[in-house]
């Protein structure tokens, strides 16, 4: 199985290559990129240099152009596609049907991957992308169990890629407007979720209150570690009580499920975290590289080594285990 690693910066790309990535994914420093965070991402020149470096080490570069194009500004997304193709990207990761249509027609030989943001969750939806745009790989949404992934990988005419580590969307990706409901900024339109520019912390009655836009997302007692107020991982209340109604502040770690994913004939494993630093990339990539090498030698996958690097310092196998639902 290929190991697909995040790079938020040229330094991150080098770190991922050195740590043993088979491919690195990254994006431009603009709204075409679903990790459009300040201080991150690549200029066209940096992408070109990064691709040359990666190719020199036998590593592929996948360019994520994975937001939904803004009406009236489609040229920005076209330019991103053209620039990535010219730079020698091994594949483009695209979510928007209009952008896929453009890329497939303008660059018929370019390898296209269907982004997780496209929410293609079954063989019929995936077949649509294969037939319409010649998609060669689909990144599966984090709503499927391993058994379902296996069935999909068996049935579809393209490769499959799944997330194995990092931030975990609780809602189906590409179909969530929770962030823009509270802040006006969404993953689909702006490439951000629960953006830091709209986060505020304040002290109130001895508690630390985290807010997103005009809404309280969580409250922490003095001794409690305070997490980032990602909307779907906040604490809310209903008539039945208060708590983490949607998801606890956990991250995905599917290390222990790697043998099953291998059996499921998954082509590639993806690590989330283009917004994370070099140290994260080095450790996570190296760890997965070792685990995968061990798998080839018939060793079982150890769990728990990377917990310190995760959000909330706790992990879940998410939807990969059916009971998560």
């Amino acid at each position, binding site marked *: 199985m290929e190991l697909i690693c995040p790079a938020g910066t040229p330094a991150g790309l080098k770190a991922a290559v050195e740590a043993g990535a088979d491919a690195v994914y990254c994006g431009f420093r603009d709204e075409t990129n679903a990790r459009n965070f300040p201080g991150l991402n690549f200029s066209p020149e940096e992408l070109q240099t990064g691709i040359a470096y990666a190719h020199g080490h036998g590593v592929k570069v996948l360019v994520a152009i994975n937001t939904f194009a803004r009406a009236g500004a489609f040229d920005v997304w076209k330019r991103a596609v053209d620039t990535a193709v010219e730079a020698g990207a091994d594949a483009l990761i695209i979510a928007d049907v209009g952008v896929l249509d453009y890329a497939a027609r303008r660059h018929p030989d370019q390898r296209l991957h269907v982004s997780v943001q496209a929410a293609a969750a079954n063989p019929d939806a995936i077949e649509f992308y294969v037939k319409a745009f010649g998609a060669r790989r689909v990144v599966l949404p984090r709503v499927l169990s391993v058994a379902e992934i296996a069935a999909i990988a068996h049935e579809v005419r393209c490769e499959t890629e799944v997330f194995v580590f990092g931030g975990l969307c609780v809602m189906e990706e590409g179909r*969530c407007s929770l962030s823009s409901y509270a*802040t006006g900024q969404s993953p689909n339109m702006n490439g951000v979720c629960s953006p830091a520019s709209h986060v505020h912390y304040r002290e109130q009655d001895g508690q630390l209150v985290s807010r997103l836009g005009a809404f309280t997302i969580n409250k922490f007692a003095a001794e409690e570690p305070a997490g980032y107020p990602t909307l779907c991982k906040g604490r809310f209340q209903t008539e039945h009580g208060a708590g983490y109604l949607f998801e606890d502040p956990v991250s995905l770690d599917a290390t222990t499920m790697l043998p099953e994913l291998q059996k499921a004939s998954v082509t590639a494993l993806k690590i989330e975290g283009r917004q994370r630093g070099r140290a994260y990339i080095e450790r996570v990539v190296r760890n997965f590289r070792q685990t995968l090498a061990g798998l080839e030698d018939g060793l079982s996958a150890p769990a728990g080594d990377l917990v310190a690097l995760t959000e909330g310092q706790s992990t879940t196998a998410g939807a990969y285990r059916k009971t998560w639902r």
Partner: protein
Amino acid sequence: MQLTLGPVLYNWQPEQWRDFYFRIAEEAPVDVVVVGEVVCSKRSPFFEAHMPAVIERLAACGKQVVLGSLILVSLPRERRQTAELAANTDFMVEVNDLTCLGSLMDRPHAIGPFVNVYNEATATYFASRGAQRICLPPELPMDSIQTIAAALPDVTMEVFAFGRVPLAISARCYHARLHKLSKDNCQFVCERDPDGLPVATLDGEPFLAMNGVQTLSHACVNLLGDVDDLAKAGVRALRFSPQQCDMVAVAKVFRDLLDGRRSQEDGMGELARIYPDIPFVNGFIHGQPGAVLTTKGTEENLRQRKAQAGTMVHEAGQ
């Protein structure tokens, strides 16, 4: 301007569901009615028994019946349901997931608000595959709506104009999770909240509404005050999403306003009486947080404040 009644998103009692549509058929001044369970495939069997009668009554009363497809399709059973729906040639199908599109074989269809149409290129692609109506995603701002509508004058562009706005869909059932049940053995607890289960912040401020695998806003989108601008932007249909209030009366308020029989101020007052205690919002189409209510006055205010501060101001209008 056409008026569309979107599908019931909640788990209503089957007889109530049937009677709701019977009354809509006979009394509501709507042109198009989308029927079918689009949120949770487990609920479908309850409504299937009443579906033929509902469709027949709606059609007999002159409504265009559109069949809505499931939003999130992952199980084999859900794929079969979706393929069967797409095979129906008697009624137009509303595609809420691209799963459905392949089976439609480019027959005329509608694209629902759960398909990501954010720009004119995507809309043009779907139109080339047979889309005749597109209900745009609720988070789209007015300038995007206008650009898309201008690019495709032959496609009926629709916006989500009344109801709690659907914000997210998940594989996880939050109703089941809240009641400590597994999704497979959910006991259909979502039926206890036919208007959604209110979710508040820890400050007690109403925020969201839970509906099984779906999350909606607590506040109700109400674009009555924006109808003129929407018409100017090229919008040709307004969608109302059924809530536990008199939806016939809601449709009448919009129809009366469009026909010049009612003022906007009067209509707003009437809607507040029809659906009391739930705040109205319209932030999304104004490029604001969806939870905000913006009127023309406050929008002008906001522009000035933005210009002065040189930064985004988000709480304005609340």
